[in-house]
């Protein structure tokens, strides 16, 4: 691959043919221009999101206008340097999207090549670029003069520039030399057949360049192949430079081996987090988040940060424990370590008990052959005995020590230990599950054979005609779809702001599903499974509450039902009211409210105000519990005010709904927006319903 991930900088010129022949295509086929544009877009996209420092230029040829430094007396015409060498950014993407169109001229692709070489040489001066590349996207459909070909090749050689062609057709098998086995369908559009005279002579020249060694055959990718695009579509794999962790493997006090560890597999995450910005200004600085602390009393007395100390829960006790004390008393250790505790059978360490989220490979220290031999002895001994080393592993003094297993790993060209964390006693949960060896559950022979044929039809690893194993589905070759989708959407938003996000790309969708072959093959066995295993969904007893239930449908409908409830409530109230209620508290405001109204000790309006105030306070917590509490408050308000006045005081009523509306939004699109609150009575769709019903209530109350 030409653009491999290197720590050193590279400079690259994308050189694209936009001449008129590029828009020619057979009916139903995408013109070469569109494909070439896609390739360029995807490539630049990758560079932008990878945030590499590699520089990139864009040269177009076949343009109506001419704009390049070599333009002189009819020389180098219809070639435009669209962008000089610089780090690619979104502007370039936007330009590619909006400014690059098929044009009406044709230009000599060798001329274009010269312009690119010139650009590379002049613009990389004084920069530390160690890789210079030119990528040419053309259908070769212009007359190119081969006179200077040798001079050009010589220049390429001297400048150390590599060249890659993207052609909209494939070279013929015999000519290509290393034809891919599965590209044999000759009827495929864009094959070498039917090339024009210009294209044929162009190809001759390309081959000539190739022979000079600037172009390896493997870099030939035809843009008419959908997989070429797909390859580029995969946003640059997130690459991190492995960090060396030098340490000593110790066995007892007398035997140590110098090793170095590298993370080999670990769950990669996106580097960037979302920042919050003001919707109008889209400025980050306009938004501020502030956390205040308050006591859990009725007044929610605010507490200053300085008056806060930390404590820990010890069962029912809360133990104040200052940071200083904690640091002094906490578990301390000697730091970095990879010490063998003992050796155990590999079979005793179960795969499903691997902990942590990484695998670390331990090699012998760099430039220390003796360590290499000593470690090799350990690795080979473990391998022959089918054992592992159980080790104490501590990354450094600040991190917590772990217990883990070091597995031997012998590859063709290297040996290492693979370290995986193992559980502590505290991590394990010993759940017992009912046995499945149960008469009622035991599958019949017919059922078992249905499963058998399902497995047969869905085996992903098969031997092909040549007896070679073929794996149809390798997750470890799939780029993380979350990253791909993330970048696709960001790209879209950056390039076409104001338009809705695009659908998922079909190739990405396809990588996440069953391979087509399997889908076909398992069709019949699946039908058989359906016949053999009756599955019936059990109706859920507890249905999610609808907004109607939460809010109490307006008046009549549920009154009959409520009567009984209310009777019970009254009974409870009598119970509770024994204690003196003087104001609407925060523990059970609805109850206090009812009691106060009943007591008639305070004016109705004042009690209402107290309640309103309480609701406001409750909602400022942004918590489902408090939210539900305020709903009961409003219910109480409605029910009591209907009893007393037959009509609620309009202002307060409106106020409450308004608070609720505001906070309903906060709640369900705010803090809990990331995930569904499982088991909460309200899901997101419900939140929508809530929203709507609040709205309707508002309208209704306005009317009345």
């Amino acid at each position, binding site marked *: 691959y030409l653009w491999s991930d290197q720590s050193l900088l590279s400079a690259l010129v994308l050189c694209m043919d936009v001449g008129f022949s590029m828009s020619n295509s057979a009916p139903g086929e995408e013109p070469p221009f569109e494909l070439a544009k896609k390739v360029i877009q995807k490539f630049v996209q990758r560079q*932008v999101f990878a945030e590499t420092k590699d520089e990139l230029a864009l040269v177009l040829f076949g343009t109506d206008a001419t704009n390049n430094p070599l333009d002189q007396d009819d020389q180098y015409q219809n070639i435009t340097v669209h962008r000089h060498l610089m780090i690619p*950014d*979104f*502007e370039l993407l936007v330009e590619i999207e909006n400014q690059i169109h098929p044009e009406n001229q044709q230009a000599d692709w060798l001329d274009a090549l010269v312009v690119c070489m010139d650009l590379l040489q002049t613009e990389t001066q004084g920069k530390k670029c160690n890789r210079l590349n030119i990528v040419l996207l053309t259908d070769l459909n212009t007359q190119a003069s081969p006179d200077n070909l040798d001079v050009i090749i010589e220049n390429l050689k001297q400048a150390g520039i590599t060249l890659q062609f993207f052609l909209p057709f494939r070279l013929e098998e015999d000519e290509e030399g290393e034809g891919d086995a599965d590209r044999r369908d000759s009827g495929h559009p864009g094959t070498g057949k039917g090339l024009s005279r210009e294209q044929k002579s162009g190809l001759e020249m390309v081959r000539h360049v190739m022979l000079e060694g600037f172009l390896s055959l493997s870099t030939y990718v035809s843009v008419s192949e959908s997989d070429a695009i797909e390859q580029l579509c995969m946003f640059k794999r997130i690459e991190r430079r492995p960090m060396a962790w030098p340490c000593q493997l110790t066995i007892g006090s*007398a035997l140590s081996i*110098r090793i170095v560890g590298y993370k080999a597999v670990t769950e990669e995450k996106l580097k960037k987090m979302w920042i919050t*910005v003001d919707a109008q200004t*889209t400025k980050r600085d*306009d938004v501020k988040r502030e*956390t*205040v602390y*308050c006591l*859990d009393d009725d007044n929610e007395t605010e507490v200053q940060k300085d008056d*806060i100390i930390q404590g*820990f829960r010890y069962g*029912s*006790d*809360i133990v104040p*424990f200052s940071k200083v004390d904690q640091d002094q*008393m906490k*578990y301390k250790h000697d730091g970095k370590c990879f010490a063998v*505790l003992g050796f155990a059978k590999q079979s005793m360490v179960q*795969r*499903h008990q691997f902990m942590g989220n*990484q695998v670390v490979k331990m090699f012998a220290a760099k430039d220390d052959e*003796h360590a290499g031999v000593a470690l090799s*002895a350990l690795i*080979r*001994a473990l391998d022959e005995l089918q*054992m592992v080393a159980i080790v104490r592993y501590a990354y450094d003094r600040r991190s*917590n020590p772990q217990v883990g297993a070091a597995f031997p*790993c012998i590859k063709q060209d290297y040996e*290492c230990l693979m370290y995986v964390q193992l*559980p502590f006693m505290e991590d*394990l949960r010993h*759940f*017992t599950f009912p046995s499945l060896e149960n008469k*009622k559950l035991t599958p019949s022979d017919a*059922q078992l054979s249905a*499963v058998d044929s399902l497995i047969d039809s*869905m*085996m992903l*690893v098969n031997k092909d005609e040549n007896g070679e194993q073929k794996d149809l589905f390798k997750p470890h070759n799939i*780029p993380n*779809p979350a990253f791909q*989708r993330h970048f696709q959407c960001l790209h879209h938003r950056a390039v076409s702001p104001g338009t809705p*996000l695009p659908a998922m790309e079909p190739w990405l969708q396809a990588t*996440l599903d069953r*391979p087509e072959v*399997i889908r076909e093959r398992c069709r019949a066995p699946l039908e058989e499974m*359906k016949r053999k*295993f009756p599955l019936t*969904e059990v109706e859920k007893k507890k249905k999610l509450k609808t907004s109607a239930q939460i809010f109490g449908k307006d008046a009549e409908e549920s009154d009959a039902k409520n009567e009984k409830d209310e009777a019970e409530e009254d009974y409870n109230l009598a119970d509770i009211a024994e204690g003196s209620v003087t104001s609407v508290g925060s523990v059970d405001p609805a109850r206090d409210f009812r009691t106060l109204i009943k007591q008639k000790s305070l004016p109705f309006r004042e009690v209402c105000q107290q309640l309103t105030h309480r609701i406001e306070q409750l909602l400022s917590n942004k918590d489902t519990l408090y939210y539900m509490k305020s709903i009961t408050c409003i219910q109480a308000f409605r029910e009591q005010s209907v009893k007393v006045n037959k009509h609620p005081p309009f202002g307060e009523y409106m106020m409450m709904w308004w608070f609720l509306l505001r906070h309903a939004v*906060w709640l369900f699109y705010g803090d809990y*927006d*990331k995930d569904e*609150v*499982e*088991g*909460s009575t309200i899901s997101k769709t419900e939140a929508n319903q809530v929203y709507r019903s609040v709205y309707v209530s508002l309208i209704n109350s306005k009317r009345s």
Partner: protein
Amino acid sequence: MITLIMDFSIKHSSYRITGRDSLVFLVDASKEMFIKGEDGQPSNFDMTMQVVRSVYMSKIISSHRDLVALVFYGTEQSKNPRNSFKHVYVYHDLDEPGAKRVQDIDSLRGEKGAQLAAETMGSGETSLGDALWCCANLYSDIKLRLSHKRLMIFTCRDEPHGGDSVKDRQARTKAGDLKETGVVIDLMHLMKPGGFNVSLFFCDVISPPEDESELGLQEEPCEKLDDLQKRVRAKEQKKRAMARLNLCLGEGLNVAVGIYATAVTARKPSAIKLYRETNEPVRSKTRTFHTQTGSLLLPSEIKKAQVYGKKQIVMERDEVDAIKKFDDPGLLLIGFKPMEKLKLHHHIQPAVFLYPEEDQVKGSACLFSALLKKCSERNVFALCRCIARRNYPPRFAALVPQHEEVDEGNAQITPPGFNVIYLPYADDFRTLDPPHYPAASQVQVDKMKEIISKLRFKYRSDAFENPVIQQHYRNLEALALDMMAPEDIEDLIMPKVEQIDSRLGPLVDEFKDLVYPENYNPESKPAAKRKTADSGGGAEKKPKVEVTEDELKVHVQNGTLAKLTVPVLKEACKQFGVRTAGTKKQELIDALVARLGS
């Protein structure tokens, strides 16, 4: 991701779970319980107290909101809420366990504990009926909602009433009442001479297995502390699914499954913020407001952004979610692969466990069981795409069959179901540039094998406690109980160096002689080593190194030629006129071996 899920389910458990779990230990305090075992084995009472203590401790660490009670029966003294029951001693009412309670239990342990028990409670008549009745009152006195109620009887007497049929009947009736109110009664029967006969009385007292398929009563009484602890722990931890999903085998073929976390990294709990004056916990409120106007911002007034290539890209909040959504939550079967295709190093997250949910989709258990059986038989795993919850991006996972295993006592060691092993994506691999060294010779390998076999042990996953967490709780314990200093912890993941050294004896030096040259010190820093070499001056030519033919032959025989440096090997080649294919070390060695090895 799983830690995330766990955090999440813990955070919101109060919504989903509508009450607290509760556990009552009903312990026999008759004289028989205090009889010491042979060879100074702890008495049944002592063993029980140890188990109760460990349950208290584990509740404190993992689920402090659960309620626990400790009640003795067959005591001389009586102590219960209304003192209406004789010979029933409520030692701890149903409440959250705390430091004080652990201390109380401690005082009942050992020789002194037995003495204290005799003084405070004594042993007297037994009426299990009264004891159960008293426990029923404990439950009903609780104002909190209880979700799971369990009662464990610890006794070594299979006929507590000595054949008094009236008392037996009374106890059965009371047990029936308790069970009716949803209390699960377990028997933790302990060893007694002549064996414990459950069928004499207790079979009618305890709850039947939760469903037909569940393992019934453990027939064998517990003899060892370990067994008892295991048995209690298995019952005490209430399992809860992290998620209930459909495992889709194909369109219209959905099996309901529950996902359980069987191993979750335990962390030190986070600190609670307290008000300095009163030590009461404070609540935090977070507000988002506009910097200029100071007004609170509604969600509609906020957007999300990321910056790439100097450009800020802005999205609506719901778009940020939409990006993460690929499909509805669930497991989709992709296909099957032979087990050897599951690579050891394809590890990114702890595994979770899959078990059918028959009460969601009827027929799930049967299909699941058939799938499990066949996968296990054919030694294949099922490759699935897994979306654990709403708006979670997909991960691929291997469903690895695990069949049920039980120990001699019929207690389940491993449950039947699939282990879900999450698989890495291409992005999760790092490109490494491994160093290349000559492989060790068989002589060297064999010496290491000797070392390994000296240090062999049987690995058990629950053998190592986390010293960080243990220390933390010891510290809290000390503070909570006003102890002078926290109890010492034993760091179980510290290598026992002296023991290792003495077991290995001369093997270490023998191995070192085989692999390391003289004066080689693996402890020295490589940089320092190079420095000394440099300080020697580059100009000064190193003294010519030579080895005798005999020495070389020994090296060849032992396969230890690699211990020699390249210049020495080159010199040796020259000396014996050996022609080499190249100048790489391995090539030099190969050439020398070919010449001298025969």
